[in-house]
Protein backbone atom coordinates (compact mmCIF):
# COMPACT_ATOMS: atom_id res chain seq x y z
CA UNK A 1 0.00 0.00 0.00
CA UNK A 2 1.41 3.39 -0.93
CA UNK A 3 2.14 6.00 1.73
CA UNK A 4 -0.41 8.34 0.21
CA UNK A 5 -3.12 5.70 0.58
CA UNK A 6 -2.18 4.58 4.04
CA UNK A 7 -1.42 8.02 5.44
CA UNK A 8 -3.78 10.23 3.47
CA UNK A 9 -1.23 12.74 2.16
CA UNK A 10 2.23 12.91 0.64
CA UNK A 11 5.58 12.35 2.38
CA UNK A 12 6.29 16.10 2.71
CA UNK A 13 3.06 16.51 4.68
CA UNK A 14 4.09 13.70 7.00
CA UNK A 15 7.64 14.99 7.51
CA UNK A 16 6.74 18.64 8.07
CA UNK A 17 3.88 17.74 10.42
CA UNK A 18 6.07 15.40 12.49
CA UNK A 19 8.85 18.02 12.63
CA UNK A 20 6.44 20.69 13.87
CA UNK A 21 4.78 18.38 16.39
CA UNK A 22 8.18 17.33 17.72
CA UNK A 23 9.22 20.97 18.24
CA UNK A 24 5.92 21.77 19.94
CA UNK A 25 6.23 18.67 22.15
CA UNK A 26 9.77 19.72 23.09
CA UNK A 27 8.57 23.20 24.10
CA UNK A 28 5.78 21.55 26.13
CA UNK A 29 8.33 19.31 27.82
CA UNK A 30 10.22 22.44 28.99
CA UNK A 31 6.95 23.76 30.46
CA UNK A 32 6.27 20.45 32.20
CA UNK A 33 9.78 20.55 33.67
CA UNK A 34 9.07 23.99 35.17
CA UNK A 35 6.83 25.30 37.94
CA UNK A 36 3.01 25.48 37.70
CA UNK A 37 2.92 23.26 34.61
CA UNK A 38 -0.68 22.20 35.27
CA UNK A 39 -1.79 25.83 35.39
CA UNK A 40 -0.14 26.51 32.00
CA UNK A 41 -1.89 23.51 30.45
CA UNK A 42 -5.19 24.61 32.03
CA UNK A 43 -4.87 28.07 30.49
CA UNK A 44 -3.83 26.63 27.13
CA UNK A 45 -6.81 24.28 26.94
CA UNK A 46 -9.09 26.78 28.68
CA UNK A 47 -8.39 29.42 26.03
CA UNK A 48 -9.60 27.04 23.31
CA UNK A 49 -12.70 26.02 25.25
CA UNK A 50 -13.58 29.64 26.08
CA UNK A 51 -13.16 30.77 22.47
CA UNK A 52 -14.56 27.79 20.54
CA UNK A 53 -17.30 26.53 22.82
CA UNK A 54 -18.40 29.67 24.70
CA UNK A 55 -17.47 32.90 22.89
CA UNK A 56 -18.13 31.63 19.35
CA UNK A 57 -21.64 30.20 20.03
CA UNK A 58 -22.46 33.30 22.10
CA UNK A 59 -21.58 35.85 19.41
CA UNK A 60 -23.20 33.68 16.75
CA UNK A 61 -26.42 33.67 18.78
CA UNK A 62 -26.20 37.44 19.30
CA UNK A 63 -25.72 37.90 15.57
CA UNK A 64 -28.78 35.74 14.78
CA UNK A 65 -30.75 37.80 17.28
CA UNK A 66 -29.68 41.00 15.51
CA UNK A 67 -30.57 39.50 12.12
CA UNK A 68 -34.12 38.96 13.34
CA UNK A 69 -34.56 42.73 13.11
CA UNK A 70 -34.48 44.85 9.98
CA UNK A 71 -31.68 43.81 7.61
CA UNK A 72 -31.36 47.46 6.59
CA UNK A 73 -30.42 48.54 10.10
CA UNK A 74 -28.42 45.50 11.14
CA UNK A 75 -24.98 46.65 10.05
CA UNK A 76 -25.52 50.01 11.71
CA UNK A 77 -25.70 48.05 14.96
CA UNK A 78 -23.17 45.28 14.21
CA UNK A 79 -20.34 47.52 13.04
CA UNK A 80 -20.13 49.87 16.07
CA UNK A 81 -20.82 46.92 18.40
CA UNK A 82 -17.94 44.94 16.90
CA UNK A 83 -15.49 47.84 16.92
CA UNK A 84 -16.35 48.64 20.54
CA UNK A 85 -16.20 44.92 21.33
CA UNK A 86 -12.69 44.51 19.91
CA UNK A 87 -11.48 47.47 22.01
CA UNK A 88 -13.08 45.83 25.06
CA UNK A 89 -11.60 42.38 24.41
CA UNK A 90 -8.11 43.86 24.22
CA UNK A 91 -8.31 46.42 27.03
CA UNK A 92 -10.90 44.94 29.43
CA UNK A 93 -8.51 44.68 32.42
CA UNK A 94 -7.93 48.43 32.37
CA UNK A 95 -11.59 49.18 31.54
CA UNK A 96 -13.15 47.15 34.34
CA UNK A 97 -10.36 47.87 36.84
CA UNK A 98 -8.55 44.51 37.12
CA UNK A 99 -4.88 43.98 37.79
CA UNK A 100 -2.10 45.88 39.48
CA UNK A 101 -2.12 49.00 37.32
CA UNK A 102 -3.23 51.42 40.06
CA UNK A 103 -0.87 49.98 42.66
CA UNK A 104 2.10 49.98 40.31
CA UNK A 105 1.62 53.38 38.68
CA UNK A 106 -0.45 55.23 41.36
CA UNK A 107 -2.68 56.45 38.52
CA UNK A 108 -6.45 56.05 38.72
CA UNK A 109 -7.80 53.35 36.42
CA UNK A 110 -11.26 54.95 36.21
CA UNK A 111 -10.41 56.97 33.10
CA UNK A 112 -10.37 53.82 30.97
CA UNK A 113 -14.01 52.92 31.60
CA UNK A 114 -15.01 56.51 30.85
CA UNK A 115 -12.93 56.57 27.64
CA UNK A 116 -14.25 53.24 26.43
CA UNK A 117 -17.85 54.30 27.11
CA UNK A 118 -17.27 57.57 25.24
CA UNK A 119 -15.68 55.69 22.34
CA UNK A 120 -18.62 53.27 22.25
CA UNK A 121 -21.10 56.15 22.40
CA UNK A 122 -19.31 57.99 19.59
CA UNK A 123 -19.27 54.87 17.38
CA UNK A 124 -22.99 54.23 17.84
CA UNK A 125 -23.80 57.94 17.39
CA UNK A 126 -21.80 58.12 14.15
CA UNK A 127 -23.49 54.94 12.92
CA UNK A 128 -26.90 56.37 13.83
CA UNK A 129 -26.23 59.62 11.95
CA UNK A 130 -25.18 57.63 8.88
CA UNK A 131 -28.33 55.53 9.13
CA UNK A 132 -30.50 58.63 9.39
CA UNK A 133 -28.80 60.20 6.35
CA UNK A 134 -29.27 57.01 4.33
CA UNK A 135 -32.90 56.71 5.38
CA UNK A 136 -33.57 60.31 4.24
CA UNK A 137 -31.97 59.68 0.87
CA UNK A 138 -34.33 56.71 0.64
Amino acid at each position, binding site marked *: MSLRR*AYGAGPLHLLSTLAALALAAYAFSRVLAGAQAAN*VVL*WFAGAVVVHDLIAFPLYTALNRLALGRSIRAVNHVRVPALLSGFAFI*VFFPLIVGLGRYERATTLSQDVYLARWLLLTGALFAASGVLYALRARRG
Partner: protein
Amino acid sequence: MAPSLIGDRHVTVRLLSQTPPPPPFRRESWRSPLRGPWLASVLGAALLAGIPIVLVTGLLSYAAYEPALGRNNLIGDPGFLDFYVFSWPTNPSWLYALTQGLHVTVGIALVPIVLVKLWSAMPRLFEWPPLRSPAHALERISLALLVGSTLFQFATGILNAQLYYPWKFSFLAAHFYGGWVFIAAFVLHAVLKLPAMRRSLRERPLLDELRRGLDETVPESGDSALIPAAPSAPTISRRGVLALTGGASLGLLALTAGQSVGGPLREIALLAPHGRDLGSGPNDFQVNKTAASLGITPAQTGAAWRLRVDGGQRPLELSRADLLALTQHAYELPIACVEGWSTTQSWSGVRLRDLAALAGVEAFDELYVESLQRGGSFRRASLSTRQAGDRRSLLALRVNGADLSPDHGFPARIVVPALPGVHCTKWVALLEFRGTRA
Protein backbone atom coordinates in the same frame (compact mmCIF):
# COMPACT_ATOMS: atom_id res chain seq x y z
CA MET B 1 -20.12 -12.57 8.89
CA ALA B 2 -20.53 -9.19 10.54
CA PRO B 3 -17.59 -6.86 9.85
CA SER B 4 -15.43 -6.04 12.82
CA LEU B 5 -15.84 -2.30 13.43
CA ILE B 6 -12.81 -1.95 15.63
CA GLY B 7 -9.61 -2.17 13.66
CA ASP B 8 -11.16 -1.56 10.29
CA ARG B 9 -10.79 2.15 9.68
CA HIS B 10 -12.57 2.18 6.34
CA VAL B 11 -15.67 0.56 7.74
CA THR B 12 -15.64 2.95 10.71
CA VAL B 13 -15.25 5.98 8.45
CA ARG B 14 -18.01 4.78 6.16
CA LEU B 15 -20.37 4.17 9.06
CA LEU B 16 -19.60 7.56 10.58
CA SER B 17 -20.22 9.33 7.30
CA GLN B 18 -23.54 7.54 6.91
CA THR B 19 -24.73 8.39 10.42
CA PRO B 20 -26.29 11.85 10.51
CA PRO B 21 -24.17 13.83 12.99
CA PRO B 22 -25.47 16.23 15.67
CA PRO B 23 -26.15 19.81 14.45
CA PRO B 24 -22.81 21.65 14.56
CA PHE B 25 -21.27 18.73 12.68
CA ARG B 26 -23.84 19.01 9.88
CA ARG B 27 -22.71 21.16 7.01
CA GLU B 28 -26.22 22.62 6.75
CA SER B 29 -25.88 24.24 10.17
CA TRP B 30 -23.19 26.61 8.86
CA ARG B 31 -25.11 29.34 7.11
CA SER B 32 -22.85 32.30 6.37
CA PRO B 33 -22.51 32.74 2.58
CA LEU B 34 -19.20 34.55 3.12
CA ARG B 35 -17.25 31.62 4.54
CA GLY B 36 -15.00 29.87 2.11
CA PRO B 37 -11.36 29.32 1.20
CA TRP B 38 -11.05 32.80 -0.35
CA LEU B 39 -12.00 34.73 2.79
CA ALA B 40 -9.83 32.43 4.92
CA SER B 41 -6.96 32.99 2.45
CA VAL B 42 -7.18 36.79 2.48
CA LEU B 43 -7.20 36.84 6.28
CA GLY B 44 -4.43 34.23 6.28
CA ALA B 45 -2.32 36.40 3.97
CA ALA B 46 -2.74 39.35 6.34
CA LEU B 47 -1.63 37.18 9.26
CA LEU B 48 1.24 35.79 7.22
CA ALA B 49 2.47 39.38 6.89
CA GLY B 50 1.85 40.39 10.51
CA ILE B 51 2.56 37.34 12.68
CA PRO B 52 6.24 36.95 11.64
CA ILE B 53 6.88 40.50 12.93
CA VAL B 54 5.46 39.52 16.31
CA LEU B 55 7.36 36.21 16.36
CA VAL B 56 10.76 37.64 15.42
CA THR B 57 10.50 40.62 17.78
CA GLY B 58 9.40 38.25 20.54
CA LEU B 59 12.49 36.08 20.07
CA LEU B 60 14.67 39.22 19.91
CA SER B 61 13.25 40.37 23.23
CA TYR B 62 14.47 37.18 24.86
CA ALA B 63 17.97 37.83 23.48
CA ALA B 64 17.82 41.46 24.68
CA TYR B 65 17.53 40.19 28.26
CA GLU B 66 21.02 38.65 27.94
CA PRO B 67 19.79 35.42 29.56
CA ALA B 68 23.25 33.87 29.74
CA LEU B 69 24.46 36.48 32.24
CA GLY B 70 24.16 36.24 36.02
CA ARG B 71 20.61 35.57 37.10
CA ASN B 72 18.99 37.19 34.08
CA ASN B 73 17.41 33.92 32.95
CA LEU B 74 14.01 33.76 34.66
CA ILE B 75 12.46 30.96 32.61
CA GLY B 76 14.28 27.85 33.78
CA ASP B 77 16.31 25.70 31.43
CA PRO B 78 15.21 26.45 27.85
CA GLY B 79 17.15 23.48 26.45
CA PHE B 80 18.14 24.26 22.88
CA LEU B 81 15.35 26.82 22.39
CA ASP B 82 17.74 29.67 23.14
CA PHE B 83 20.15 28.56 20.37
CA TYR B 84 19.90 31.90 18.57
CA VAL B 85 20.78 34.13 21.54
CA PHE B 86 23.47 36.66 20.66
CA SER B 87 25.13 39.61 22.32
CA TRP B 88 22.44 42.32 22.26
CA PRO B 89 23.75 45.56 20.71
CA THR B 90 23.52 49.08 22.14
CA ASN B 91 23.10 50.69 18.72
CA PRO B 92 20.79 52.20 17.71
CA SER B 93 19.71 53.29 21.19
CA TRP B 94 16.04 52.92 20.15
CA LEU B 95 16.50 49.31 18.99
CA TYR B 96 14.55 47.71 21.85
CA ALA B 97 11.94 50.49 21.78
CA LEU B 98 11.40 49.58 18.11
CA THR B 99 11.42 45.78 18.38
CA GLN B 100 9.30 45.59 21.51
CA GLY B 101 7.00 48.42 20.37
CA LEU B 102 6.37 46.38 17.20
CA HIS B 103 5.85 43.17 19.21
CA VAL B 104 3.11 44.62 21.39
CA THR B 105 1.55 47.14 18.99
CA VAL B 106 1.39 44.81 15.97
CA GLY B 107 0.22 41.98 18.26
CA ILE B 108 -2.69 44.08 19.52
CA ALA B 109 -3.55 45.32 16.02
CA LEU B 110 -3.73 41.70 14.78
CA VAL B 111 -6.41 40.70 17.32
CA PRO B 112 -9.42 41.45 15.04
CA ILE B 113 -7.77 39.63 12.10
CA VAL B 114 -7.03 36.59 14.28
CA LEU B 115 -10.59 36.45 15.62
CA VAL B 116 -12.25 36.90 12.21
CA LYS B 117 -9.89 34.28 10.78
CA LEU B 118 -10.98 31.86 13.52
CA TRP B 119 -14.61 32.66 12.67
CA SER B 120 -13.94 31.99 8.99
CA ALA B 121 -12.39 28.58 9.69
CA MET B 122 -14.72 27.46 12.48
CA PRO B 123 -16.58 24.79 10.42
CA ARG B 124 -13.28 22.86 10.37
CA LEU B 125 -13.60 22.26 14.10
CA PHE B 126 -16.87 20.46 13.46
CA GLU B 127 -15.85 18.44 10.41
CA TRP B 128 -17.64 15.15 9.87
CA PRO B 129 -16.32 12.50 9.97
CA PRO B 130 -13.94 13.92 12.58
CA LEU B 131 -10.99 11.81 11.41
CA ARG B 132 -10.56 10.75 7.80
CA SER B 133 -6.99 9.51 7.75
CA PRO B 134 -3.77 9.54 9.79
CA ALA B 135 -2.76 12.71 7.89
CA HIS B 136 -6.02 14.36 8.85
CA ALA B 137 -5.58 13.29 12.49
CA LEU B 138 -2.06 14.77 12.69
CA GLU B 139 -3.20 17.95 10.99
CA ARG B 140 -6.06 18.33 13.47
CA ILE B 141 -3.64 17.90 16.37
CA SER B 142 -1.43 20.60 14.88
CA LEU B 143 -4.46 22.86 14.36
CA ALA B 144 -5.49 22.38 18.00
CA LEU B 145 -1.96 23.47 18.96
CA LEU B 146 -2.17 26.42 16.57
CA VAL B 147 -5.48 27.68 17.94
CA GLY B 148 -4.48 26.98 21.55
CA SER B 149 -1.08 28.66 21.28
CA THR B 150 -2.50 31.62 19.35
CA LEU B 151 -5.14 32.29 21.99
CA PHE B 152 -2.67 31.60 24.82
CA GLN B 153 0.03 33.89 23.44
CA PHE B 154 -2.33 36.75 22.61
CA ALA B 155 -4.19 36.49 25.93
CA THR B 156 -1.12 36.26 28.16
CA GLY B 157 0.75 39.00 26.28
CA ILE B 158 -2.15 41.42 26.24
CA LEU B 159 -3.06 40.87 29.90
CA ASN B 160 0.59 41.18 30.96
CA ALA B 161 0.87 44.54 29.17
CA GLN B 162 -1.95 45.77 31.42
CA LEU B 163 -0.35 44.39 34.60
CA TYR B 164 -3.15 41.84 35.03
CA TYR B 165 -1.88 38.39 36.01
CA PRO B 166 -4.85 36.09 36.70
CA TRP B 167 -2.69 32.94 36.44
CA LYS B 168 -0.29 31.11 38.76
CA PHE B 169 2.54 30.50 36.29
CA SER B 170 5.49 32.71 35.43
CA PHE B 171 4.47 34.89 32.49
CA LEU B 172 8.01 35.03 31.14
CA ALA B 173 8.43 31.26 31.01
CA ALA B 174 4.93 30.47 29.73
CA HIS B 175 5.01 33.17 27.03
CA PHE B 176 8.47 32.01 25.88
CA TYR B 177 7.61 28.30 25.60
CA GLY B 178 4.10 29.09 24.33
CA GLY B 179 5.83 31.15 21.67
CA TRP B 180 7.75 28.10 20.49
CA VAL B 181 4.60 25.98 20.31
CA PHE B 182 3.05 28.82 18.30
CA ILE B 183 6.08 29.05 15.98
CA ALA B 184 5.93 25.29 15.30
CA ALA B 185 2.19 25.26 14.64
CA PHE B 186 2.12 28.54 12.68
CA VAL B 187 5.01 27.67 10.35
CA LEU B 188 3.51 24.24 9.67
CA HIS B 189 0.09 25.73 8.92
CA ALA B 190 1.65 28.35 6.60
CA VAL B 191 3.67 25.68 4.76
CA LEU B 192 0.72 23.30 4.35
CA LYS B 193 -1.77 25.98 3.33
CA LEU B 194 0.39 28.26 1.20
CA PRO B 195 -0.40 26.49 -2.11
CA ALA B 196 -4.15 26.54 -1.45
CA MET B 197 -3.96 30.17 -0.35
CA ARG B 198 -2.13 31.25 -3.50
CA ARG B 199 -4.52 29.30 -5.71
CA SER B 200 -7.52 30.83 -4.01
CA LEU B 201 -6.20 34.39 -4.28
CA ARG B 202 -5.24 33.87 -7.92
CA GLU B 203 -8.65 32.52 -8.89
CA ARG B 204 -10.48 35.40 -7.24
CA PRO B 205 -8.29 38.53 -7.28
CA LEU B 206 -8.68 40.79 -4.25
CA LEU B 207 -9.32 43.94 -6.32
CA ASP B 208 -12.20 42.25 -8.17
CA GLU B 209 -13.79 41.20 -4.92
CA LEU B 210 -13.44 44.72 -3.50
CA ARG B 211 -15.68 45.97 -6.34
CA ARG B 212 -18.51 43.60 -5.39
CA GLY B 213 -21.28 45.05 -3.24
CA LEU B 214 -23.88 43.19 -1.21
CA ASP B 215 -26.02 42.41 -4.30
CA GLU B 216 -23.16 40.58 -5.98
CA THR B 217 -22.07 38.66 -2.87
CA VAL B 218 -22.64 34.97 -3.55
CA PRO B 219 -21.13 31.88 -1.89
CA GLU B 220 -17.83 30.60 -3.26
CA SER B 221 -17.93 27.54 -5.45
CA GLY B 222 -15.85 24.45 -4.92
CA ASP B 223 -15.76 21.43 -2.63
CA SER B 224 -14.17 23.06 0.44
CA ALA B 225 -15.79 22.18 3.75
CA LEU B 226 -15.77 25.91 4.54
CA ILE B 227 -18.34 26.68 1.82
CA PRO B 228 -21.86 26.43 3.25
CA ALA B 229 -24.11 23.69 1.88
CA ALA B 230 -27.25 25.68 2.67
CA PRO B 231 -26.24 29.36 2.71
CA SER B 232 -28.52 32.09 3.94
CA ALA B 233 -28.82 35.42 2.10
CA PRO B 234 -25.82 37.72 2.69
CA THR B 235 -26.23 40.60 5.13
CA ILE B 236 -22.81 42.10 4.47
CA SER B 237 -20.46 41.94 1.50
CA ARG B 238 -17.00 40.36 1.61
CA ARG B 239 -15.45 43.79 1.17
CA GLY B 240 -17.61 44.90 4.11
CA VAL B 241 -16.15 42.15 6.30
CA LEU B 242 -12.61 43.03 5.19
CA ALA B 243 -13.21 46.77 5.77
CA LEU B 244 -14.63 46.06 9.22
CA THR B 245 -11.74 43.76 10.16
CA GLY B 246 -9.11 46.10 8.75
CA GLY B 247 -10.81 49.11 10.32
CA ALA B 248 -10.88 47.44 13.73
CA SER B 249 -7.21 46.55 13.32
CA LEU B 250 -6.25 50.12 12.37
CA GLY B 251 -8.40 51.46 15.21
CA LEU B 252 -6.54 49.31 17.76
CA LEU B 253 -3.25 50.39 16.17
CA ALA B 254 -4.22 54.05 16.66
CA LEU B 255 -5.33 53.38 20.25
CA THR B 256 -2.00 51.70 21.09
CA ALA B 257 0.87 52.96 18.92
CA GLY B 258 1.21 56.29 20.73
CA GLN B 259 2.50 54.69 23.92
CA SER B 260 5.49 53.44 21.97
CA VAL B 261 5.98 56.18 19.38
CA GLY B 262 5.36 59.03 21.84
CA GLY B 263 4.93 62.69 20.91
CA PRO B 264 1.43 63.86 19.95
CA LEU B 265 0.43 60.27 19.14
CA ARG B 266 0.53 59.46 22.87
CA GLU B 267 -2.58 61.58 23.30
CA ILE B 268 -4.66 59.37 21.01
CA ALA B 269 -3.47 56.15 22.68
CA LEU B 270 -6.65 56.50 24.74
CA LEU B 271 -6.91 52.93 25.99
CA ALA B 272 -3.21 52.04 26.17
CA PRO B 273 -1.82 51.64 29.70
CA HIS B 274 1.03 54.07 29.05
CA GLY B 275 -0.66 56.56 26.78
CA ARG B 276 -1.43 59.12 29.46
CA ASP B 277 -0.21 62.70 29.67
CA LEU B 278 1.35 63.09 33.10
CA GLY B 279 2.21 66.80 32.94
CA SER B 280 5.13 68.92 31.74
CA GLY B 281 7.62 68.76 34.63
CA PRO B 282 11.07 67.15 34.23
CA ASN B 283 9.92 63.93 35.94
CA ASP B 284 6.44 63.83 34.41
CA PHE B 285 6.83 60.77 32.20
CA GLN B 286 5.66 57.15 32.36
CA VAL B 287 6.38 55.06 35.45
CA ASN B 288 6.03 51.29 35.46
CA LYS B 289 6.46 50.64 39.19
CA THR B 290 6.43 53.41 41.77
CA ALA B 291 8.77 53.59 44.75
CA ALA B 292 5.83 53.06 47.11
CA SER B 293 4.61 49.95 45.25
CA LEU B 294 7.99 48.30 45.83
CA GLY B 295 8.40 49.44 49.43
CA ILE B 296 11.22 51.93 48.81
CA THR B 297 11.25 54.37 51.76
CA PRO B 298 12.71 57.91 51.98
CA ALA B 299 14.98 56.68 54.80
CA GLN B 300 16.66 54.23 52.40
CA THR B 301 17.22 56.82 49.68
CA GLY B 302 18.13 59.81 51.91
CA ALA B 303 21.50 61.08 53.17
CA ALA B 304 22.46 57.63 54.47
CA TRP B 305 22.32 56.04 50.97
CA ARG B 306 25.63 54.79 49.61
CA LEU B 307 26.45 53.15 46.32
CA ARG B 308 28.79 50.18 46.66
CA VAL B 309 31.05 49.49 43.70
CA ASP B 310 32.67 46.06 44.07
CA GLY B 311 34.86 43.78 42.01
CA GLY B 312 37.75 46.14 41.33
CA GLN B 313 41.08 46.70 43.06
CA ARG B 314 39.54 49.61 45.00
CA PRO B 315 36.04 48.81 46.31
CA LEU B 316 34.10 52.06 46.62
CA GLU B 317 31.32 53.45 48.77
CA LEU B 318 29.99 56.62 47.21
CA SER B 319 27.36 59.07 48.44
CA ARG B 320 25.17 60.94 45.99
CA ALA B 321 27.30 64.04 46.55
CA ASP B 322 30.43 61.99 45.67
CA LEU B 323 28.77 60.84 42.47
CA LEU B 324 27.65 64.36 41.53
CA ALA B 325 31.25 65.54 42.01
CA LEU B 326 32.42 63.12 39.28
CA THR B 327 32.35 64.10 35.59
CA GLN B 328 28.70 64.19 34.48
CA HIS B 329 27.51 63.20 31.00
CA ALA B 330 24.09 63.72 29.45
CA TYR B 331 22.38 61.63 26.76
CA GLU B 332 18.94 61.41 25.21
CA LEU B 333 17.97 57.77 25.71
CA PRO B 334 14.75 55.80 25.70
CA ILE B 335 13.36 53.67 28.49
CA ALA B 336 11.67 50.88 26.53
CA CYS B 337 9.43 48.46 28.38
CA VAL B 338 8.77 44.83 27.53
CA GLU B 339 5.09 45.82 27.80
CA GLY B 340 5.50 47.79 24.58
CA TRP B 341 5.68 51.40 25.69
CA SER B 342 8.66 53.71 25.68
CA THR B 343 9.68 57.23 26.57
CA THR B 344 12.83 59.12 25.57
CA GLN B 345 14.29 61.55 28.10
CA SER B 346 17.50 63.46 28.66
CA TRP B 347 19.43 61.65 31.39
CA SER B 348 22.62 62.79 33.11
CA GLY B 349 24.97 61.09 35.51
CA VAL B 350 28.21 59.15 35.70
CA ARG B 351 29.37 56.81 32.96
CA LEU B 352 29.42 53.20 34.11
CA ARG B 353 32.84 52.76 32.52
CA ASP B 354 34.15 55.76 34.49
CA LEU B 355 32.97 54.05 37.69
CA ALA B 356 34.75 50.87 36.58
CA ALA B 357 37.98 52.80 36.07
CA LEU B 358 37.59 54.56 39.41
CA ALA B 359 37.17 51.21 41.18
CA GLY B 360 40.27 49.82 39.48
CA VAL B 361 38.50 47.51 37.01
CA GLU B 362 40.22 47.15 33.67
CA ALA B 363 38.28 44.34 32.06
CA PHE B 364 35.15 42.48 33.15
CA ASP B 365 32.65 39.93 31.83
CA GLU B 366 29.52 41.18 33.53
CA LEU B 367 28.23 44.11 35.57
CA TYR B 368 25.82 42.86 38.23
CA VAL B 369 23.44 45.57 39.45
CA GLU B 370 21.28 45.31 42.55
CA SER B 371 18.46 47.59 43.66
CA LEU B 372 17.34 48.65 47.13
CA GLN B 373 14.01 46.97 46.42
CA ARG B 374 13.43 43.74 48.34
CA GLY B 375 11.01 41.85 46.14
CA GLY B 376 10.35 41.50 42.43
CA SER B 377 12.06 39.44 39.74
CA PHE B 378 13.89 42.49 38.46
CA ARG B 379 15.49 43.78 41.63
CA ARG B 380 18.78 42.71 40.07
CA ALA B 381 20.11 42.53 36.54
CA SER B 382 23.39 41.75 34.84
CA LEU B 383 24.72 43.86 31.97
CA SER B 384 27.14 42.62 29.33
CA THR B 385 30.55 44.20 28.78
CA ARG B 386 29.15 45.78 25.66
CA GLN B 387 26.17 47.26 27.54
CA ALA B 388 28.09 48.53 30.56
CA GLY B 389 31.00 49.69 28.40
CA ASP B 390 29.03 51.88 25.98
CA ARG B 391 30.00 55.54 26.43
CA ARG B 392 26.31 56.46 26.81
CA SER B 393 25.66 53.92 29.57
CA LEU B 394 24.99 55.88 32.72
CA LEU B 395 24.37 55.61 36.37
CA ALA B 396 21.82 58.41 35.96
CA LEU B 397 21.34 60.90 38.80
CA ARG B 398 19.27 63.54 37.04
CA VAL B 399 16.73 63.70 34.25
CA ASN B 400 15.76 66.70 32.13
CA GLY B 401 17.87 68.96 34.35
CA ALA B 402 16.24 67.93 37.65
CA ASP B 403 17.04 65.31 40.28
CA LEU B 404 15.40 61.95 39.58
CA SER B 405 12.05 61.68 41.33
CA PRO B 406 11.58 58.78 43.78
CA ASP B 407 9.42 56.96 41.20
CA HIS B 408 12.11 57.28 38.53
CA GLY B 409 14.75 55.72 40.77
CA PHE B 410 16.23 58.44 43.04
CA PRO B 411 19.02 58.50 44.12
CA ALA B 412 20.43 56.67 41.06
CA ARG B 413 19.29 54.40 38.23
CA ILE B 414 20.79 52.56 35.30
CA VAL B 415 20.17 53.92 31.81
CA VAL B 416 21.76 51.96 28.94
CA PRO B 417 21.01 52.35 25.22
CA ALA B 418 18.71 49.64 23.77
CA LEU B 419 18.44 47.86 27.13
CA PRO B 420 15.01 46.44 28.11
CA GLY B 421 13.36 48.78 30.61
CA VAL B 422 13.23 46.28 33.48
CA HIS B 423 17.01 46.00 33.34
CA CYS B 424 17.37 49.77 33.73
CA THR B 425 17.46 49.13 37.48
CA LYS B 426 16.12 51.91 39.73
CA TRP B 427 17.25 52.77 43.30
CA VAL B 428 20.66 51.18 42.63
CA ALA B 429 22.52 50.02 45.76
CA LEU B 430 25.30 47.84 44.33
CA LEU B 431 27.40 47.66 41.18
CA GLU B 432 29.57 44.56 41.07
CA PHE B 433 31.99 44.02 38.22
CA ARG B 434 32.39 40.28 37.73
CA GLY B 435 34.97 38.25 35.90
CA THR B 436 37.41 41.09 36.38
CA ARG B 437 41.01 41.01 35.27
CA ALA B 438 43.22 43.73 36.70
